């Protein structure tokens, strides 16, 4: 198979270069229109913040991955891209690379399940641009199977691997339903904003914000449709919250043990989660000694992240096994597109139908006629298959498995349902 893949990713290029190569959806569409017909007859362009990749069936024998590399280098000539920044794959290795990408084991954050959707979206773009042919569709279908199997059959995407998700995971080990809980986010910088959005996404019942700069808090509160407290008196409201996330850049402690003790007294001892994700810390770590106060800082959240990452790493061999299985399935199908097996399968398929029908109806004929029936039906089948067989043999004799002949064979197999219809099994 002559599938080519060229990739610039976090293994090969520094972040600045990956950023420079990042393509928006319009850029991708422009690139696809240029590559179509010039480099590839059909293909796929995947672009995420950690990778830019090109997959495709070359337009002719002479197109190599150097041409694809040069094509990219020409497009982004203002950046210092060199051939060392590329990974290139051919045939089975190219399909395998796509399978590794979609399953998340090639991601910077192992098991990142966003990549599955990103690959899917890339394929939709390729389809819209009429860049996907018979082969790429099948490659994509197989890749989708790999992605789904990796998620359902392994734990490659299980557990939180970012600090903010780890905070949510931890909160969910304390409270059962977030929609009945209330949360206060102190500090509306980038970290605070992410935390507030995570809580909103997880369906927190009531969310409030506070920040030294009231305007900034108000702006985010308007975006998230939440309440906002002035920083000067937010401590008076502490007891109203089950979860407090603090992420300010204040140099000193904002909440002391006394503040929390007072709040807990007003709460009648109901559990309170304190997530201090600020550096330096905002909440007195001594608060962890108060009953029903669950205090956690960046270090404790990192313990969860590290545990989950090592768990995901231990799942990689299972995903690799799935990849090998699906690679075998894919290439079994692809090899069946060779002319000779298809001729045989097609003949077997017709012969099975003929034999079954003769068998069903033979009692309607006398012994003498049965022999004639065999001869006549065989002759009909031979005549029907004569022309297709000659055409397919031409393909076989040319010794080439061009995408066109593969497409023709694939359509033939699909039309007669040969891959789903196993004559041998039916006979049993």
């Amino acid at each position, binding site marked *: 198979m002559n599938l080519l893949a060229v990739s610039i990713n976090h293994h090969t290029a520094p972040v600045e270069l990956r950023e420079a190569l990042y393509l928006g959806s319009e850029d991708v569409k422009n690139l696809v229109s240029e590559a179509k017909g010039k480099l590839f007859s059909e293909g796929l362009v995947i672009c995420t913040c950690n990778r830019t990749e090109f997959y495709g069936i070359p337009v002719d024998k002479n197109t190599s991955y150097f041409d694809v590399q040069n094509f990219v280098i020409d497009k982004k000539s203002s950046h210092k891209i060199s051939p060392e920044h590329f990974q290139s794959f051919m045939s089975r290795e190219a399909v395998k690379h796509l399978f590794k990408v979609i399953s998340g084991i090639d991601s910077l954050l192992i098991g990142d399940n966003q990549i599955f959707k990103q690959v899917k979206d890339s394929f939709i773009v390729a389809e819209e641009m009429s860049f996907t042919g018979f082969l790429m569709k099948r490659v994509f279908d197989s890749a989708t199977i790999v992605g789904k199997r990796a998620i359902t059959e392994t*734990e490659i995407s299980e557990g939180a691997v970012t600090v903010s998700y780890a905070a949510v995971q931890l909160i*969910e*080990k*304390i*409270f*059962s339903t977030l929609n009945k809980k209330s949360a206060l986010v102190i500090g509306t910088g980038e970290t605070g904003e992410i935390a507030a959005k995570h809580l909103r996404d997880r369906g927190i019942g009531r969310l409030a914000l506070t920040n030294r700069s009231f305007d900034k808090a108000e702006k985010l509160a308007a975006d998230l449709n939440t309440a906002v407290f002035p920083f000067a008196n937010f401590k008076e409201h502490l007891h109203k919250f089950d979860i407090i996330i603090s992420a300010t850049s204040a140099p000193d402690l904002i909440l002391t043990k006394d503040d929390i003790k007072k709040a807990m007294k007003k709460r009648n001892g109901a559990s309170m989660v304190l997530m201090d994700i600020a550096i330096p810390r905002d909440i007195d770590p001594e608060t962890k000694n108060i009953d*029903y106060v*669950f205090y*956690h800082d960046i*270090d404790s959240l990192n313990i969860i992240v590290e545990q989950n990452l090592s768990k995901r790493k231990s799942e990689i061999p299972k995903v690799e096994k799935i990849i090998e299985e699906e690679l075998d399935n894919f290439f079994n199908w692809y090899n069946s597109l060779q002319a000779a097996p298809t001729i045989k399968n097609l003949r077997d398929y017709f012969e099975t139908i003929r034999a079954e029908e003769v068998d069903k109806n033979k009692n309607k004929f006398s012994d003498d006629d049965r022999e004639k029936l065999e001869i006549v039906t065989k002759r009909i089948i031979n005549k029907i298959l004569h022309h297709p067989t000659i055409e397919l043999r031409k393909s076989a004799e040319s010794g080439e498995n061009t995408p066109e002949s593969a497409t023709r064979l694939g359509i033939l197999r699909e039309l007669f349902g040969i891959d789903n219809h196993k004559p041998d099994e039916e006979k049993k």
Partner: protein
Amino acid sequence: MISFIDFLNILLPFLYVITFGIYSYDFMKGRKELANYKRLFLFITLLFHAIYLITRTLYFGHPPITNVFEIFAVLAFAIAFSYFVLELVTDIRGTGPFIIIISILFQVISSIEIEHIVAVKDVLKSNLLGIHVFSALVGYSGITISAVYGFLYLMLYKEIKLNQFGLIFNRMPNLEILEKLSFSSAIIGFALLTIAIIIGIIWLPQAFPDFSYADPKLIGTSIVWILYGIGITAKLLGKWRGKKVVILSIVGFVIAILSTMLTNFLSLSFHSFY
């Protein structure tokens, strides 16, 4: 039939141990594919246990509640069955090993010590006794399960507080659910014990000439009942929560076990039937 009963009696501890093994392996490894097998195996074990109890009742002509080892066999079944129902209803599957091990303890003691008793005292053939023992057994299952969930609550509470995110953290449901499971089981246990005690107080003085209000089992059960009553009321009034309630539940369970052992193994009471 007697050899079939004997066979089941020997088989049951093995079935419970295998079920416990599958549940424990799944707890350690967290393998998704075992999730349904372990439930199936628990079901098979319960099925054999039910057949054992029924055949025993039919063969000996009385329900297996006439001595402490028969009662242990019923208690093992009641605890495992309650857990099975709880697992089906809540779909919380990580807590199995901690409850099944208690069934193993009761069943192993029962299987080793149980005897073939055909003739039982007339007093033990009463219907009221049936209700008394049945409600007491389900009540004890309730407080056992409540204590186990209480214990798991304390373990998870400690892990989260100390940032030790181990197996308990990864496999257990959250603290609120554990507290709720412990509390709901305690309420069921308390309600059934109340029924058992009421029937006992009405019927026992008539049935047993040597009945005494100073009976250790009666005192033990009353203490357990009062403790649970205090805990449940305090929780419902919003005075107590979390650790306090579950510790009370565990203490209640320990007292219940101690009073049973004192009563039956030291033969101090009319409540000892062997």
